[in-house]
């Protein structure tokens, strides 16, 4: 039997862990426990709740305000894993710099990223956004329309990304993408990047942005991008959406063409 004194000696260790990883614990609580509880209590999904809040508070047709309302909801009510305001600014700036005409977004989720991208597009540009989950896609569709973007500007494609990407050219008429924004499953970043490469969907000098490369993190993707020689890779350090203390980053890849 272990004596209580020895057990007590582990107390500082526990306290250390608690203090050091408090942000992660708070994230766990907000993003998992609260969401699960609310799902049980209200019977609706988190995304629907967010959309209801949006309907009640946002000004239709004003993408800026819609993004703000999203942020408000995430700060004050529940956690939603979208791009977030801090990283959003990085994305916006890069979009303005590149001014791409053909934009591809992988992972629509609630449409936050889509609205963010769409509002920064130059005139005449077209945004394709791919979402695997039909429920999320339904919410995203409504959000996009609420922000005032029609189907000529934003095309929402429902289907898993590994199936959609090979058909992009034939079915959807996307010849070459100038700008790709990845924010779906972190495990799929590398696979989808390779798919894009193999189907030659990347234009020369195309920019690929990948969200959440540090937390939860996509190490293989980063490693591949750094070592394969076809990209110039740069990681913009920022913090996780709505959690300033958890470091995260956006990877910016410039496609320099095949070897």
């Amino acid at each position, binding site marked *: 039997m272990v004596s209580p004194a020895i057990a007590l000696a582990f107390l500082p260790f526990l306290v250390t862990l608690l203090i050091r990883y408090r942000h992660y614990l708070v994230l766990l609580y907000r993003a998992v426990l609260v969401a699960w509880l609310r799902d049980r209590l209200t019977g609706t999904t988190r995304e629907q709740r967010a959309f209801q809040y949006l309907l009640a508070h946002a000004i239709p047709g004003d993408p800026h305000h819609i993004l703000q309302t999203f942020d408000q909801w995430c700060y004050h009510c529940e956690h939603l894993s979208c791009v977030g305001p801090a990283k959003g600014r990085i994305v916006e700036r890069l979009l303005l710099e590149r001014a791409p005409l053909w934009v591809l977004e992988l992972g629509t989720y609630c449409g936050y990223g889509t609205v963010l991208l769409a509002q920064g597009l130059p005139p005449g540009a077209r945004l394709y956004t791919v979402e695997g989950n039909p429920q999320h896609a339904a919410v995203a569709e409504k959000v996009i329309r609420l922000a005032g973007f029609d189907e000529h500007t934003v095309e929402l494609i429902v289907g898993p990304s590994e199936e959609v990407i090979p058909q992009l050219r034939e079915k959807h008429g996307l010849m070459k993408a100038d700008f790709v924004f990845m924010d779906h499953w972190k495990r799929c970043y590398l696979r989808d990047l390779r798919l894009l490469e193999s189907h030659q969907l990347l234009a020369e000098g195309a920019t690929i942005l990948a969200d959440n490369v*540090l*937390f939860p993190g996509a190490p293989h993707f980063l490693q591949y991008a750094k070592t394969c020689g076809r990209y110039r890779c740069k990681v913009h350090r920022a913090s996780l959406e709505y959690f300033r203390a958890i470091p995260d980053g956006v990877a910016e890849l410039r496609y320099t063409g095949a070897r």
Partner: protein
Amino acid sequence: MPKHEKSTEGNDGSGDNEEGSAAENEENVKGTDKGRKRATPRTARSHGRGRARHGDEENEDDEDGTRRAGHHRHRNRRRGRAAGNEGSDSDTEAAKARKNQANQKSKEDDEEEEDGKGGKSGKGKNEKKVDKKPDKKGKKEKANKKKKDKKKSGSGSDSDSEEEPITEEELAKLKEEVEEKKKLIATLRNKPWKMKKKLSVLKEAQLFVEKFEGALGKGKGKKFYAYKVMMTKKWMKFQRDFENFKTACIPWEMKIKEIESHFGSSVASYFIFLRWMYGINMILFGLTFGLVMVPEALMGKPYGSLPRKTVPRAEEATAMNFATLWDFSGFAQYSVLFYGYYNNQRTIGWLKFRMPLSYFLVGVGTIGYSFMIVIRTMARNANDDGGGDDTSFNFSWKMFTSWDYLIGNPETADNKFASITTSFKEAIVEEQESRKEENIHLTRFLRVLANFLALCTLAGSGYLIFFVVRRSQKFALEGLENYGWWERNEVNMVMSLLGMFCPTLFDVISSLENYHPRIALRWQLGRIFALFLGNLYTFIIALMDEINLKLEEEKIVKYNMTIWEASLYNGTIPENSTAPPIQVDPADVPRGPCWETMVGQEFVRLTVSDTMTTYITILIGDFLRAVFVRFFNYCWCWDLEYGFPSYSEFDISGNVLGLIFNQGMIWMGSFYAPCLPAINVFRLHTSMYLQCWAVMCCNVPQERVFKASRSNNFYMAMLLFILFLSTLPAVYTIVSIPPSFDCGPFSGKTRMFEVISETLEHDFPSWFGKVFGYASNPGLILPFILLMVLSIYYLNATSKSYKEANLELKKKLQSQAEENKRRNKQKAQKSNEQEENPFETEPPKPKGGKQDESTPNQDNKKGQDGNESKKTGQPQEASSSQVLQHPSLAPSNHYPPQSQAGNLPPPSIAVTRPPGPRRYGMPGYPPGNPCFPGPQPGMPRGPHNYR
């Protein structure tokens, strides 16, 4: 000749009075001229005339010098005339080969400059001796060199004829010059010149030395001289090789450098500390091993001859088991490793080695030596930081002086590169730190809170240890056999667990405080120090209790012994009391508990378990974690390397304190276990390799790299404190507890230190004992102590006042430098205005003696300035002479009329002067190296007043 000499001397007189500043002046002028030369491309056409004239002047000077040197004796009389001729001569020459000259000029000027330098350094060495000479000397040297130049180039037609009559005087000169060159070659590395220039100067100097070394000493002395030169060369080479060898002999130097380059100086400081500790322990080990263990093993009575040297009968069965040996009992306990094995025989062996005395003196000497070395190191380190701020121009220092041009192999170059990058990071972080402003109240509150939390932790852990120790005493009273492993090892477990986890907690707490990492490290060190101290003293108190128990036990054993002996005698020889004593196997003799050996064993066990804990922590906490992070990163749902577990950082504070406390344990225990230093040496040796490997292989550099300047002294202070604290219990036990009656070198005495008086009685004449008795009289000792305290106070006060004076001087230096800069600017402006005046530029260049006469006024002025500045040292001199370069230039007309300079003096100055954001007089300039901090090749001659 005498006449001429006199005349030149007369001319030079004013310059000679302050040759230091004059020499500098020359340099400065060159600096200026170089600047002008740089400016020439722009204004080439307008200055054509000026340039030509300037060129011929220079040329004339050259030839002048040459002839003077060559034909000192016969030419001096017709010099005045010759000068004119030469002037015209060289005029044409200059006109012919202006371009050539421009090329050559730089070379010549280099030489000139180095000459000036040589002269300067020479003067620095023997300022008094050469009051008037150096100028002359410099001149002659120059002349000689010119001669050489001519010879080399073959342009001087008359040089061949001049070479023949080498007299003693010239020989001496030549020798001197060769020496000069050699010196230059030796010091070339330190010169702040461009690489190209360095190379060319070096090549030239080497050529010169080669050429003239052999030629020197013609005749009978030649062979000897050549031999001498060869030998000196070989000697030099040997010395250099020896230096290399010495650096190669510094243990682990390369490893530490590599770590420093990757992890910064703070981590390296730990390893340097470790290495230092290793050295100390080597000496302690040498003392105990050489003077205690080896004599006892060689000359003492062998194992089994005495009860104290034999394993008792009850333990014999298990005495050789590994578990027993690992616990340092059984055969290990009854060996030279521990106190109890030693016999109280006064002398042993044929050498009549006084074992008890040696044992006692080694014990005292160990501690005394440690005190001495720690204090000496502290004092030496304290000298390093001279006080005041050396932080100005930090970045330019790093930028321009970081690279080590002697690096030969690519790996070292990589390391150096990494280390420079790291040092830049450190500096930038520090700069940021100093500029930051934040909410002071919040920080204060957070700091108080953090300290409160730390105190709570300390109190809690202290109470926990106290509680555990009390409980263990209860267990011990009831008999340990009734309890399990956990209960028996509870104290050790709790102590090591707390020692492992509390520092991490402190680390987390200290992130609240938001200190600069270096200060945070100190706080962290202080807190862990308190924690470890609590642990250590709890341990000692427990040990003291145990000692008291053993003393009680000893009394009983002593009583039993007499009964046992009586029974032995009674039972066997009742009839004959004079019969020889009965032989009893020493293993059967009952014996006392021998508390000294127990104490020694405890310390050895603690050291060993501490070492094991450290190694296991490294293996699990660092290595396995690194392996996990590295290889599980391929199949994990988040990024392990950036995210949650990550790689570990090197824990400086914990490691340093572990080392320090370990050393404290050694100091405390080495009196009772002579093997302790040996164990510690082994531990330090292995931990050096293990930790070096672990750091390089599984740790990442700290997020905030920082410089560990002066943290070494902080470590030392802690070490001193621990040394003091660990001496206390050791001395207490030695002085106030009677030694065991049947084990150890002091058995049979009432106190251990009685061995001294015993020696005095037996081995010294009686008067010595008497003197010693008088000297140890408290009436004499107390005043002596008082005197010592007073002298310490006095020394402390004086050192403080010196420090203040140093600071004051530094400030003065700084302000004077600024003042000089300002004056410099003003004068430069004035001189520029003067130049504008066409009347001033008109007078033809003064020639020969005339020119010499024209400048003394300025020189006088300069002399005053120079004298004033001389008080504060060389840098000052330099800048003061810089001040004067312009006025002295203006009349000698080295400035061509600058037509476009007009009313814009500052820009033209900026062009004509070497870029001088940081000149010699400025603070932060390394003391004792007052050479010119910038390359200045190729500038025309300055004023010729002291030539």
